[in-house]
């Protein structure tokens, strides 16, 4: 275990998973099924017209599926992104078989939060002035509302943390959740990420050239590491893992999926929204972790590559340097973005996939991430011993 890693304090295991994404909804079996099928959920956007927009693809969650997971009363009160988070958290808690209490925490990662509510709130004013402002909508404009709704639903009274992060929101949330348990701040944490597909964000990102096809001549699509990769395709959904202190999980007879033996994150200094394949990482905790683990070898590696050339190329270069002795086939890392689309829950899907691999016996799985702006993450997932 490297400096200050979770195992230096309390060991952390994964005991549950809940996901609502464009491919599937359910617990660990649902994710395992979607991964085994390997079918991309990306298709033409259905929820709004994309006329006049350079992009037209996304991975959308079926509204009927979501409606079946959230009771009608909650559905009336809650915004769509809150319903996504709520449904996935409840599925995760059910999968783990735990209940709420003062020892249960929540960590939610999101990139865009609830922009739909921000738009609705602002439009109320634009239409009717101060009288048009809705006090019911305003709280949703703050990004921690998804965590708040989920905390109430599952009875989580330990820390409830929301992290705003591009590309790696879910990975970072799981890493922070691991830390909370390792440091004794919670006995269990529901950790993961969420984002929704929202027309205004989609259009502006496309206009700014942040989505495939990024003003290129190649066809639109999510093609990580391909020679003609030309941008990410947005997805939506929520995925949460239940993390627990290992001994507590054992004591209650939990069905442990895997252990998170390392969780590190750091920064590779760069300008906002940029990524540079030639910029190395000499000093972050992730670089130190990978170099220390070089000889231990990883059996599989998931990456944050999502078709954005800046992210793909930077991730390939960083891992090439930090895992110079990697076995043939480990790199480039596997990307789940072509299956589920880029969204805040994708990182938790990566960790969930690694936990399923470990449950099936994979000795050591690395979940790596780099984002524009320089945030870098690494989690090592291994069979629970």
């Amino acid at each position, binding site marked *: 275990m490297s*400096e200050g890693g979770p195992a*230096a304090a309390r060991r952390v295991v994964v005991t549950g998973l809940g996901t609502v994404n464009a491919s599937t909804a359910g617990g660990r079996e649902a994710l395992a099924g979607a991964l085994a099928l390997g079918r991309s959920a990306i298709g033409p956007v259905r929820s709004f017209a994309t006329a006049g927009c350079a992009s037209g693809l996304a991975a959308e969650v079926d509204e009927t599926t979501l409606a079946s997971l959230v009771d009608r009363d909650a559905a009336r009160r809650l915004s769509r992104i809150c319903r996504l988070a709520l449904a996935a958290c409840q599925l995760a808690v059910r999968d783990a078989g*735990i*209940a*709420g*209490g*003062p*020892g*249960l*925490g929540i960590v939610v990662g999101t*990139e865009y*939060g609830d922009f739909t509510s921000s738009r609705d*709130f*602002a*439009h109320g*004013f*634009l239409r009717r*002035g*101060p009288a048009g*402002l809705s*006090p019911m909508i*305003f*709280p949703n404009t*703050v*990004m*921690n*509302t998804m965590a*708040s709704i989920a*905390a*109430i639903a599952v*009875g989580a009274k*330990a*820390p*409830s*943390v*929301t*992290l*705003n992060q591009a590309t790696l929101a879910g990975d970072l949330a799981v890493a*922070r959740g691991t830390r909370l348990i390792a*440091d*004794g*701040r919670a*006995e*269990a944490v529901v950790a993961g990420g969420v984002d929704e597909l929202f027309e205004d964000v989609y259009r*502006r990102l496309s*206009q*700014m050239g942040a989505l495939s096809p990024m003003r290129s001549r190649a066809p639109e699509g999510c093609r990580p590491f391909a020679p003609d990769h030309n941008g990410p395709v947005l997805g939506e959904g929520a995925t949460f893992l239940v993390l627990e202190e290992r001994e507590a999980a054992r004591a209650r007879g939990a069905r442990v999926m895997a252990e998170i033996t390392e969780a590190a*994150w*750091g*920064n590779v*200094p*760069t*300008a*906002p929204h940029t990524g540079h394949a030639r910029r190395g990482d000499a*000093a*972050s*905790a992730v670089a130190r972790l990978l170099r220390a683990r070089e000889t231990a070898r990883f059996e599989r590696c998931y990456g944050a590559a999502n078709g954005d050339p800046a992210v793909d190329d930077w991730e390939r270069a960083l891992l090439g340097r930090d895992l110079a002795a990697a076995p043939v086939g480990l790199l480039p890392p596997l990307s789940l973005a072509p299956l589920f689309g880029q969204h805040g829950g994708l990182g938790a899907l990566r960790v969930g996939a690694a936990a399923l691999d470990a449950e099936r016996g994979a000795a050591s799985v690395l979940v790596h991430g780099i984002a524009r*702006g*320089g*945030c870098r993450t690494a989690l090592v997932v291994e069979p629970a011993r």
Partner: protein
Amino acid sequence: MSRPLGSRRPPGSGIREIVVSGLGVVSPYGAGVKSFWTGLAAGTCAIKPITVIDTEGFRSRIAAEIPADVMPALGVSRRRSRADRIALAAAREALADAGLEGPARREAALLIGAVGGGMLEGEDWYWGEARGVPSGRMSALRSILPLSHAETLGGRLGLTGPKETVVMACASGAASIALGADLVRAGVTPTALVGGVDALTHICFMGFNALKLLDPTPCRPFDRDRRGMSIGEAAAFLVIEDALHCRARGGRVHARLTGYGMTTDAHHVTAPHPEGEGMIHAMRQALADAGLDAARVGYVNAHGTGTPQNDRAEALALRRVFGEGGVLVSSTKSLVGHTMAAAGSVEAVATILALQHGLLPPTASLEHVDPEVPFDCLPVTARPADVAAALSNSFGFGGQNVSLVFEKAAGRE
């Protein structure tokens, strides 16, 4: 198989001691810790008519703004968002104050509490579009998210440690300090730049107006006649550090950060638990974490927003933890407004300065103490008091509760 999860095991003593080695603030008093303390010590209320937002038609039209002449003097490009500009200036002051340079600076973690991001500039663009009068500044959208501050500071300051943008409503700034402290305690990094930032935005101003939580006059926390809060804007950063690391490099010590508590009400999205249950647990956790008896705490820098609900719940919680009149209490928000995501770090700095100077900042505009608040709330005038340990409370929408314990650098008596 369901079972209730019990109380956590307090991390407790026997682990790394954390000190605060640097402070930086841009507040409604101006730029710098010195102007901040001068304003607090004098009990100057910085809440005035708003100039950066059109307030026509709103019930409350006041806030604690950063003075217009301060912004150009910050030494940060005007092309950055207002929030990024004040964050960068406050962070630079904190790092310079700590004397953190070279590798010790590069490996620092960066945790920023944020909510509004660069929304003020994004609103200009979006509203122009919505009204059919495009402003042509779509690039402002690139800085609209809260994460923009961490990206800007991480890049400009060359930090390589763990980087997080913590969005926990009005407890964001305090939470960033607490979560950063865990990284130092665990040995992940010896130093962390932690704090919060929020600039005034239309959405925040309009939202609290819509909720009818704003007082049309400067807020009066703990007053019998209080009518709500006053919003503000600020950035405040602390450099927290492993005490041994700080000593080895000859760094200064403003105070010790000896514990924190962080809980969730899991009760209501906007209202605090009526009995202050989550607040009580947060304060008790913080004291247990610090290994400190409540009787040793001489001062609480309260969340103290000035809303009837918050102040009542906080007073109930304080009574349960400290007993009636068991501790001196004041609200910094009465002086510089509720600075949202920055509030927790602004008030942490106020608490540390109070310990250092032996002078407790007052609660401005407090005339008739609410009988439901059985504490000396230090009305109007700062009071000299040699306090060894103090608590800083921050609570937020979503039932977020964070309490921080700071102790004098000289150690417990």
